[in-house]
């Protein structure tokens, strides 16, 4: 250290302090240093990447160790932003969890914003790579996407069986026709159970259902009530918990929500078997996937944007997602939806591969 020469004029303390400083500096230099190859790859610099311990500053200039493979073709890296339906959220996060475990360099974030909120605020303004939806994309959302130049492809994620539930002590309404269901939920709704069917008790119906911002609400209207619309005389919520707790606590209550909640809490409430003209059918994984449970089985979607599919890590995640839609243990067992059939999966995979080719080609 050259600086020591000009310290001679002053007293011992200064010389000492300078020596200490030089010592500390030498310590810092002589100890393990590390050279970074790619910028921002500071995540793991744990074990000395270069073997030379006593290195002086000179060898720092060359960063050609080639030790880090972060830019290499083997490992995927990047971020994936996902928003959208709260119904699809558990499924998407289960798949993302497994994908993140296999690809630690890919950071995935998922927001549960509701189908419409995700399209309007994030996806169609180009902020997210995927948008989950519990209903197909709407006309006005397509227009918004078009305005912002966001192209997308529609993938079927799984099937949900919308489940109508009643109190466990309710022994009369365990089977209902679609028409009776409609009488209970349409805009001029039946007030008493006895209004629907004469032999049912002369008690007021207490309704718990999805809020009008939810995809479940739209789907229920479209497939049960049609033009008769949805009643206002019910407790509306986005939370399945609240619906279940409401029905559980009221003997004369009725509610509807996605299959998953009932599937995971089967003792709490009783599902209604729906009669669509071919006899009553209870909601279950089998009846929903075979198409017997009608009209309340609905497909769930996810919409990757074309631009995002152009990136390899997003494309790979989309492929992984589609491949997992038939995974019974994950989709049915862990999340409680109906897995896609092999045919559907093949179709979706073909659609996706075409899209990826178009995006990357």
């Amino acid at each position, binding site marked *: 250290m050259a600086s020591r020469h000009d310290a001679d004029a002053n007293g011992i303390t200064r010389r000492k302090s300078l020596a200490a400083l030089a010592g500390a500096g030498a310590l*810092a230099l002589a100890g393990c240093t590390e050279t970074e190859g790619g910028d921002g790859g*500071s995540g793991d610099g*744990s074990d000395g990447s270069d073997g030379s311990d006593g290195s002086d500053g000179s060898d720092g200039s060359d960063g050609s160790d080639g030790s880090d493979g972060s830019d290499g073709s083997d490992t995927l890296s990047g971020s994936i932003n996902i928003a959208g339906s709260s119904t699809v959220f*558990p499924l998407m996060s289960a798949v993302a969890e497994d994908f*993140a475990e296999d690809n630690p360099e890919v950071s995935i974030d998922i927001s*549960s914003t509701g189908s419409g909120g995700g399209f309007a605020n994030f996806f169609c303004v180009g902020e997210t790579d995927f948008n989950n939806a519990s209903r197909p994309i709407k006309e006005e959302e397509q227009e918004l996407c078009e305005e912002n130049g966001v192209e997308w492809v529609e993938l079927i994620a799984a099937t949900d069986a919308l489940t109508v539930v009643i109190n466990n002590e309710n022994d009369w309404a365990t089977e209902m026709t679609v028409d009776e269901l409609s009488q209970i939920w349409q805009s001029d709704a039946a007030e008493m159970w006895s209004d629907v069917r004469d032999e049912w008790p002369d008690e007021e119906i207490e309704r718990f259902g999805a809020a009008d911002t939810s995809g479940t609400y739209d789907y229920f209207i479209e497939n049960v009530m049609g033009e008769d619309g949805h009643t206002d005389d019910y407790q509306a919520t986005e939370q399945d918990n609240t619906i279940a707790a409401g029905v559980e606590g009221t003997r004369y209550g009725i509610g509807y929500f996605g299959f998953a909640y009932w599937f995971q809490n089967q003792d709490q409430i009783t599902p209604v078997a729906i009669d669509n003209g071919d006899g009553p059918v209870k909601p279950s994984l089998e009846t929903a996937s075979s198409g017997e449970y009608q009209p309340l089985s609905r497909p769930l979607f996810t919409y990757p944007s074309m631009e995002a599919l152009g990136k390899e890590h997003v494309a790979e995640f989309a492929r992984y997602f589609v491949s997992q839609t038939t995974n019974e243990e994950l989709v049915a067992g862990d999340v409680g939806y109906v897995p896609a059939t092999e045919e559907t999966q093949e179709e979706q995979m073909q659609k996706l591969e075409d899209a990826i080719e178009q995006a990357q080609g």
Partner: protein
Amino acid sequence: MATDTDTGRVEEFGEVSRVRGIAFEYLSLGASVLGIFALAVLLIYVTIDAFDLANANPLWLLTYFLTLVVPFLGFCLYSARDRTLTRRAVTVAGGGLVAVAVAFTLVETFVGQVPRLNWQLTYLFVVIIPLTGYLVYMGARGRPGSVGFGMVGRLIGGTAIGLAFSVLFLVFDERLWFLAYTLGIVPALLAYAYGRLRDTPAAVTAALPISILGMVLAVFVREVLRTYPTTAFIYLWTLAIPIAAAGAVVVNGRGSRTAALTAGGVPLALATAVGLFGRAAGLGVGGPNALLVIAVTGVPVAAYLHRVFDVGEGVSGLGLPVLLVAGALAGAFLVELFGIPTPSPWVSETFLTEAPSRTATEAGLYPAIVGSVIIIAMVAVLSFALGVATSVFLEEYTADTGVVGALTRLLQINIANLAAVPSVVYGLLGLGLFANLLGFGFGTAVTVSLTLSLLILPITIISAQEAIRSVPDDLRRGSDAMGATRWQTTKNVVLPEAFPGILTGTILALGRAIGETAPLIMVGAATTVFSPPSSLFSKFSAMPMQIYAWANFPQAEFRYGVVAAGVITLLIILIGMNGTAILLRNRAERGN
């Protein structure tokens, strides 16, 4: 009640009715009891769920009660050295046991089953925890108690601060910090010290420009330079050594030079040894984070040890950490020995260190904890700086009269009203202003922190103003009379005097910020992320977001166990944060 109307007449003074006064007193009592009782029930159930206490074997509870709680209470009583207190404590503990058991059995027989509670747990929550709180309070008044709690506090606090630092370095580039420290802060400190020692004011004045220049230089050098010391050496050089030096200086002020060297050197050596060679030596711990934690914990502990031995009073209090650790170990040993089934708490190591998962037992909160800690650190800095600056300006600098005075009053009213604006509105503002217009990105740490800072800014400003206003005007006039400028008065008189009050307001406001969900949803913060953020501009999640998502999961284990664990973690971090601020405040108050 007719007499009440006559009380205005002085000659009939003896006829005052006490009914209203008594009624009012009991109404207030009832209101406070109702509120506190509801909160207590909520917290008790959350705690029971989070630690799976409902399934705890009574023998398990008894074992830990005897090995951990009883010795601790004994320590508190020993410290208090008060026979009546001891007698009363034993009476309460024993009488409470009988009373709770009888009352609980009566309720169960005549009213019905109480969900997820038994009389042992009720006894724990209703009698033992309040008793412990009271005895801690009484014990801390004695010298051994205050020494013991001071020691435990430094151990826990140091670890927490060390961990918080290492979390912050997940997003802040430690190499940039290394350059900024080496090129900016060190030269500035040297210049300052030189100026002070040699009495050269020019050097002291130059310190600030030197540090700014050095930091700007660091940003440029960071772009060019590619070789750096390892993280462990950076922590050693930029944090551990200065902390050790500061500790040594403090001890040097109180005692001998040898003691100072020991107090700074021993923890530093330990931190270096464990940090650099711990893994290699097979200790199981090591690496840069261990170095940081040991340095941040060790130096204050060493300084405190020196002070305690210096004073020479209450040295026995130093046994408290040993007592606690030994108690916990003995409990674990006995449980193992007799094969008592242990409950499986939801708040566990995996919960704190793992990513979220679809299965309840594997679910973790780690990315969200990191997100919250980073956000809250930035919010604290931003809102404190902005809030103090605004309130100082409004209180000390603007005129009270004239056009400026009217404008100030208008501003004042607006600030007060802003405090009542719903948080969703701030979320919308953040979305429009920070995410869209300024392009800080959706749901990034920068956007979220700025939005939350704005959200709590009115509260910070109002409370800081209150604190500044409560500084007696005589002090200002006194300072003026000495010929001080307004800046000097503010800096030397007003701010130190108002500091505790300002901190109180900031603590309350930060507590609100850490629990907010609505604005985070609006600015697009992620509900779930699987890895901790790597920069300030990557997508963030925060604890309330993740907890809210879990509360909607269909599985009952999520809605009860995992959510409760999340709530408890959030509360513990909140308490830790508030505790730090309260300690700072108390220190400032003592300083006055």
